């Protein structure tokens, strides 16, 4: 049986303005999790009951730990409360949830790992596990010079940076960086804001590159039961029998052609 787990917090530190890096001791999840999957984090505030879906930024099956890098979205938010947790505190967590990136497709290929903003964390675990199976090119976009996690991608392949204000790498977004550097790849795995995903989908279609996108939607159950978190699909799918797939259960990673953006 699966269950919600009360996990010890091993570390929870700020790594950039509003960005936190938390490690949890939770072997049950670490042993089963894969890159691109996520967990539901609970705030521990009885006025805020719904889970916060957070992608796995790191998985250490041996140590039994998972790493989550998350943004505090505002002052009176659940993530602000999560950021107050200290080493030694506990937090309720459920997972691993959803389907990750189809890693097997990347074997022996040149693969773009594209992350935008708070979509970068899941790409780090993906880079780590693909490093010795594929030729990894990480194309990462930040707002400004606070390029959190950037150095950690370097051991796993080339890293191309873009920043909105141009302070690091290409000025602009990840697609600008791809163009500016004349890059190409056999496969794309990406996570980031919707406009970025939309642009990537178009780019991938034009260049006939298989492309997998990690989607975001508001959730309630996180396990596929409530139909809160659907994304519109191009075809009727076998579960819903309408053009709506569940981000939490059928995703969060979808083949780009499958979803409408």
């Amino acid at each position, binding site marked *: 049986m699966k269950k919600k787990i009360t996990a010890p917090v091993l570390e929870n530190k700020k790594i950039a303005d509003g960005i936190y890096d938390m490690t949890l001791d939770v072997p049950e999840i670490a042993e089963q999790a894969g890159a691109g999957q996520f967990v539901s984090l609970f705030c521990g505030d009885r006025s805020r009951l719904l889970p916060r879906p957070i992608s796995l930024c790191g998985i250490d099956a041996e140590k039994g730990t998972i790493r989550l890098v998350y943004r505090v979205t505002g002052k009176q938010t659940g993530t602000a409360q999560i950021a107050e947790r200290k080493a030694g505190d506990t937090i309720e967590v459920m997972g691993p949830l959803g389907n990750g990136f189809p890693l097997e497709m990347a074997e022996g290929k040149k693969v773009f790992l594209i992350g935008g903003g708070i979509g970068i964390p899941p790409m780090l675990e993906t880079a780590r596990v693909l490093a010795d199976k594929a030729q990894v090119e990480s194309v990462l976009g930040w707002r400004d010079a606070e390029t959190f996690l950037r150095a950690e991608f370097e051991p796993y392949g080339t890293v191309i940076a873009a920043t909105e204000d141009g302070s690091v790498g290409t000025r602009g977004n990840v697609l600008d960086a791809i163009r500016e550097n004349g890059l190409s790849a056999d496969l794309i795995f990406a996570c980031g804001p919707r406009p970025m995903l939309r642009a990537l989908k178009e780019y991938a279609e034009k260049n006939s590159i298989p492309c997998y996108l990690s989607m975001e939607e508001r959730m309630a159950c996180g396990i596929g039961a409530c139909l809160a978190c659907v994304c519109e699909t191009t075809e009727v799918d076998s579960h819903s*029998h309408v053009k709506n797939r569940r981000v939490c259960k059928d995703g969060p990673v979808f083949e780009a052609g499958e979803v409408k953006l």
Partner: protein
Amino acid sequence: MNTEKDLTVTIAGVELKNPVMTASGTFGSGVEYSDFVDLNRLGAVVTKGVSDVPWEGNPVPRVAEVYGGMLNAIGLQNPGVEVFCRRDIPYLKQFDTKIVVNVCGHTEQEYVRVVDRLADEPVDLLEINISCPNVKAGGITFGTNPRGVENITRELKCHAKQPLIMKLSPNVTDIAEIARAAEAGGADAVSLINTLTGMKIDVNRRTFVLANRTGGMSGPAVKPVAVRMVYQTAQAVQIPVIGMGGIASAEDALEFILAGATAVSVGTANFYDPEATVKIADGLERYLQEQKIDSIRELIGAVR
């Protein structure tokens, strides 16, 4: 020395092994939660609303968190009754629990088609959702007017082979009047509350949080309204009342039972405590032990 306690309750001749059911729409058809709880432990599984043809539901965002609860405007997305009969009923039949199918429609005809289609299926009870605030036609519009409730109940009674539970909306001036109308129409039971219509505005983006603007509120925040309405309903009708709205613990369930509910449904609590249903069943048994009461039935409506 714990003696066996009797948790069984009966609704319209259907005996449940305990009063704990799932609330429609929060538990799918049980598949997903079967990873977290043993469905054999539940009094009944109440399925997501089923319509005659597949429904797409509303655009996203479909949910919003609110203080002590949530809003939803799923809009009754479902694969339609055909798929449901082919896939979900056989799945649920694997378990030793009762099957309650929640039925929705835009028009009386649509409800009738679903009820007809289910007539010969191995389903124990039908719960007719005349109270969903999130669809444009049908749903709540049937549920807020006594005449309408009585008529649709009577019509569906002509078609249904299973006993009918009419699911009532709390967005009404006088719940007792609505419940009496359902009873007059021949309902075998009533269930309540469905969600309270609510709204959330994002003050930074200055927009509605839900694409649908309004949504149905559920979770612990609605419990006092739900308990009040269950009490008023139980005072007003002879048929069994199924209580729900914010139940997350055995104590919550007992409030409803003491107020007059024969059984209870657990909805939003599943989302933040996937084992809630089974914990509640266990808690009810513990309460009977502690209070030295033989049967949960002694508690139904015991506070008046």
